[in-house]
């Protein structure tokens, strides 16, 4: 039944190419500065901020003192640096292979 795996991979979904840029959020999740184009959806910024803050917060609760997180997707790399409760987040589009 191994052939079924090709249907469950999900890599054939169309991928969105996001722009490169960065933004900074404070400890409440408010965007303090951004170099992203204005066309970049605010909802995306909010979703990314939420996950990054949650990851740093839960790491702190688990006593793992991380200062930087790098998340590699097929078409995007997110780099988040901890900034006194907030974070500086870089978006780098990748070419899916």
């Amino acid at each position: 039944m191994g052939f079924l795996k090709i249907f469950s991979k999900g890599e054939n979904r169309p991928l969105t190419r996001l722009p490169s840029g960065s933004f900074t959020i404070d400890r409440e999740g408010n965007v303090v500065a951004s170099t992203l184009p204005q066309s970049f959806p605010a909802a995306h910024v909010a979703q990314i901020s939420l996950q990054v803050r949650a990851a740093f917060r839960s790491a702190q609760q688990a006593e793992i003192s991380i200062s930087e997180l790098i998340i590699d997707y097929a078409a995007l790399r997110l780099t988040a640096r901890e900034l006194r409760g907030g974070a500086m987040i870089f978006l780098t589009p990748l070419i899916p292979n």
Partner: protein
Amino acid sequence: MAAEQKILLVDDDQNFLDVYRETLRKLPGEPAVQTANTGARALAILEAEPFHLLIVDLNMPKMDGLQVLSVARRKFPNLPLVVWTGMTDEHFRLRAYALGVDQYWQKPSNPQDIESFRLSMDSLLNRQVNGGFRGVQSKSLVDLIQLECQSLSSSVIKISNGRLDARIWIHSGQLIDAEAQQLQGEEAFREVFSWKGGNFEILPPEPERPRAIFTSYQGLLLETLQALDESKAGEATATASAGSAEETANLTTMTSLAAMSRFEGVEFALACAPEKPSCSWGLERPEPMQQWLRQVRQGFSSLGEQLKVGDLRQLSCKDQRHFITITPTGDGELCVGFQNKLSADKIRETLKTILAKWGS
């Protein structure tokens, strides 16, 4: 006239240091209170002048409280040691007492606790030390090696067992060589552990000794002890039935993880799969890491779906000492902790090899 009593207070939180310096200064004996905000600084101060009491926080960056305590207990066996910490984990209490601390305190949070703490510190300062050996405990060779390596010491451990003689060389916390009978390096190290008992003493370091062991001390200890356990288990199960398939699978995973110690710069590894117990190597407390890992993977996987940027390929993070990679492996995750000083290329290459081996 009695000499002035001196207390050394160690904590990375400057506010605590300021508050408790004043509190302790008001003890009846009016002791002099000196503070240090890092473990390394505390040890330097201890080397420079004698103290009558050392109070150490456990949770500190770089050199944590347990490391400070282990070095202090070894170098200053008559110095009373006190832990004060915000950590409630019983595991730390046990480890601290195993290192020979005199008292273990949760950081006082109300006036009553503060008063008890003061009284207790006062009685420790006034306690008559009657000479003889203090803090000497029944330590195993494993404890001793861990202690030496964790405190980044350099020494030679001489082990005698009747006519048998062996030596283990440690340099700056790294296990560099061992010699037993005609054996050298890792083989000699394993040989020592196959002895049923013996005495050991610590000799001055020999920094010129060429390195013959390249595996980390955690990896080598784990492998050696595992091999011993397995051989004991083999003997025990000669007449009994074989273990369950699940246990065998866990053992295989453990062995694979321990084998990662052979890769340069790999300090720990953790393998998780849903509904299965996780296996780890080189981590003192794998549970919080495992929980965080699952949480973060779930969170970022769903973020990837929302952003439509494809599957989550890898997660990496940096802490003060490690570069940690988390790679989804089918239904689970494989987390590998590298030394921070390794180059990005080296980490990438090593991880590729590890993942290839892990997959196979």
